[in-house]
């Protein structure tokens, strides 16, 4: 069956956007209906994204979609709003939808603790719409717009509980996010001022013609800093350890699992590889930022007593791995980074969900107050173990393979120091996740948790789903699947400015 991508591509944005406005209409009474609708929406997104992934394979290369078929060319510049579906976008799309499906599944019972569920789902859907738009768009300004949609909904979602911690975290997140957005917008303005184009492909083309000068360098640095805030790279990370733990658990899963990647890392690598073009210095900057995040996040996670805060710091650390690997700029490095990015989306959201499950039953996030919970909550304990093992890089879970690739890529690129850092931090990662296991799930059961029960079935289902994925994702490295999923994503980046521009520009004609 030939899939007409042109028909269904915008649905990836339209469905969550529409649901984002329909769900709040359901109000306070029809909460179960809101659950069902939200789950159906995310499930349909999963199907859609997989169809897109498969369909893109059938169609070969990338797909470019012009909104409303509206496009004018004037003075060599193409105006119009376009969506670009290449391997990287398709991969990100699948990740976003899978994680959001697991999160909505988890939310249906978890959000019993909160009021205003339909609004929650509305914001949730808006966030998904923002992320989907962000990974699909082929134009700098729309990137900014979608990024802000996702970010604003996430600010609100972090503050959803309206307790003092949550408000504080949300406020800090908001302020830093705002500063970042101004940086991003300013740099987009600078780029437009110099090159007179917003379309990424065209921007890249002109930049290649005119060469990088001071102004575009300033723009690049501002973009790097702004998107670095969104991606929580050290030293732009400070909001993350506050914001991610404060949000409701499914939201933490979304934030750590996909948001910082979709609107942070994805945007960075898209700009660096497809607009500016990778250069050794740029790669070095990414690698240094990545390594710094890796180390700082890992070391700080060791010191945390709060389950979710620990997970948040570990997100910083893992994002560091991703950026380090991608910054290498070698095909293997990019592949490793993207693979780790995908894996991290799965296992970090799993871990946040399990932390939410623990909080749901015990009401605490402090590790030293827990203990022996694996006896009472076997599924949560198992899935958390799987997640921890994955993130710590214990075979046969997926984290092992991506870490293996990252280390190999670092060594192969001759970056010995970075490889050593990666190895050491992977040990530290293992150490703090074993601390989680030791304090929360093993050891002696405290008396006050004698009545604790396992979480409801839907929550279990979502955790088990992700845990199974943790094991199954390792198979993505098998060449057959790698060629279908990871390598197109890798190629989308590795082809650089010229390739991207060719892909998008040759498809200009077929769009409208």
């Amino acid at each position: 069956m030939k899939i007409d991508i042109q028909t269904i591509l915008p649905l990836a944005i339209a469905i969550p956007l529409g649901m984002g406005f329909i769900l709040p209409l359901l109000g306070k009474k029809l909460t179960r209906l809101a659950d069902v609708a939200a789950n159906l929406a995310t499930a349909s997104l999963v199907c859609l994204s997989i169809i897109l992934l498969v369909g893109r394979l059938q169609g070969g290369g990338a797909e470019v979609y012009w909104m409303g078929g509206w496009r004018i060319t004037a003075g060599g510049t193409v105006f119009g709003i376009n969506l670009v579906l290449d391997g990287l976008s398709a991969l990100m799309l699948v990740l976003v939808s899978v994680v959001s499906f697991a999160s909505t599944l988890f939310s249906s019972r978890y959000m019993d603790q909160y009021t205003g569920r339909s609004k929650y789902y509305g914001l949730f859907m808006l966030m998904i719409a923002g992320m989907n738009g962000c990974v699909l768009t082929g134009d700098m300004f729309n990137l900014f717009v979608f990024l802000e949609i996702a970010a604003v909904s996430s600010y609100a979602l972090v503050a959803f509980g309206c307790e003092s911690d949550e408000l504080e975290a949300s406020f800090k997140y908001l302020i830093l996010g705002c500063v970042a957005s101004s940086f991003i917008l300013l740099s987009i303005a600078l780029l437009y001022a110099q090159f007179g184009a917003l379309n990424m492909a065209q921007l890249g083309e002109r930049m290649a013609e005119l060469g990088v000068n001071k102004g575009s360098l300033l723009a690049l640095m501002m973009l790097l800093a702004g998107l670095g805030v969104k991606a929580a790279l050290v030293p732009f990370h400070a909001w993350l350890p506050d914001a991610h733990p404060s949000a409701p658990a499914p939201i933490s899963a979304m934030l750590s699992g996909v948001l910082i990647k979709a609107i942070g890392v994805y945007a960075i690598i898209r700009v660096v590889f497809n607009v500016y073009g990778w250069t050794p210095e740029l790669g070095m900057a990414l690698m240094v930022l990545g390594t710094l995040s890796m180390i700082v996040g890992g070391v700080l996670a060791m010191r945390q007593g709060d389950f979710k805060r620990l997970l948040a710091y570990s997100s910083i650390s893992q994002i560091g791995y991703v950026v380090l690997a991608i910054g290498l700029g070698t095909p293997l490095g990019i592949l490793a980074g993207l693979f780790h990015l995908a894996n991290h989306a799965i296992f970090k959201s799993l871990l946040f969900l399990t932390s939410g499950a623990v909080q749901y039953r015990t009401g605490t996030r402090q590790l030293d107050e827990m203990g022996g919970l694996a006896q009472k909550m076997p599924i949560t304990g198992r899935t958390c173990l799987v997640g921890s093992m994955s993130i710590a890089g214990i075979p046969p879970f997926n984290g092992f393979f991506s870490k293996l690739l990252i280390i190999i890529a670092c060594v192969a690129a001759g970056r010995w120091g970075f490889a050593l850092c990666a190895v050491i931090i992977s040990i530290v990662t293992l150490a703090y996740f074993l601390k989680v296991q030791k304090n929360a799930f093993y050891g002696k059961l405290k008396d006050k948790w004698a009545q604790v029960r396992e979480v409801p079935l839907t929550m279990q289902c979502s955790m088990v789903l992700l845990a199974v994925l943790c094991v199954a994702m390792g198979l993505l490295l098998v060449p057959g699947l790698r060629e279908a999923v990871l390598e197109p994503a890798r190629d989308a980046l590795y082809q650089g400015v010229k390739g991207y521009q060719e892909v998008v520009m040759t498809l200009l004609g077929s769009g409208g």
Partner: protein
Amino acid sequence: MTGMTVIVKTVTRWTAALIFLYGAYVVAYGHLGPGGGFAGGVILACAYILITLAYGGEHALRVLPRAVASRLDSFGALAFLALALVGMVGGGLFFTNWLQQKWAGKAFHVFNGGIIPLANVAIAIKVCMSLFLVFFILSSVRMFGKDEQIDFRSKEVD
């Protein structure tokens, strides 16, 4: 909020409707000149905000109940999306201007932009209601104190 002096109330009475009308004008001519859904929507919201300021929150809620506002809010966005999606029916593209052919009026006349004026109207409804809600909620925070549940809705248009 009990409202302001009789002066303000009276002037509000005189002008609110006219402000609304002006907002409607800005919306309707958005595709021909400066303005459009967002700017017009803000002006529309100003009419309601003026009422809120002059007469107090309770009267404002009688004019525009909150439930209605939030429903219209969603409705506006959905209408906008629906306009875009209708373009896809019959093999078109997202945001196809499906009215342009059938409803091609004369240039510089109101009825000629295809779906663009309609989209403007949808956006205006959305913006107006969002802005009103935001204003209302922010202004009522201090009034109701701690227990009032804040409606943390973010508004995104365009």
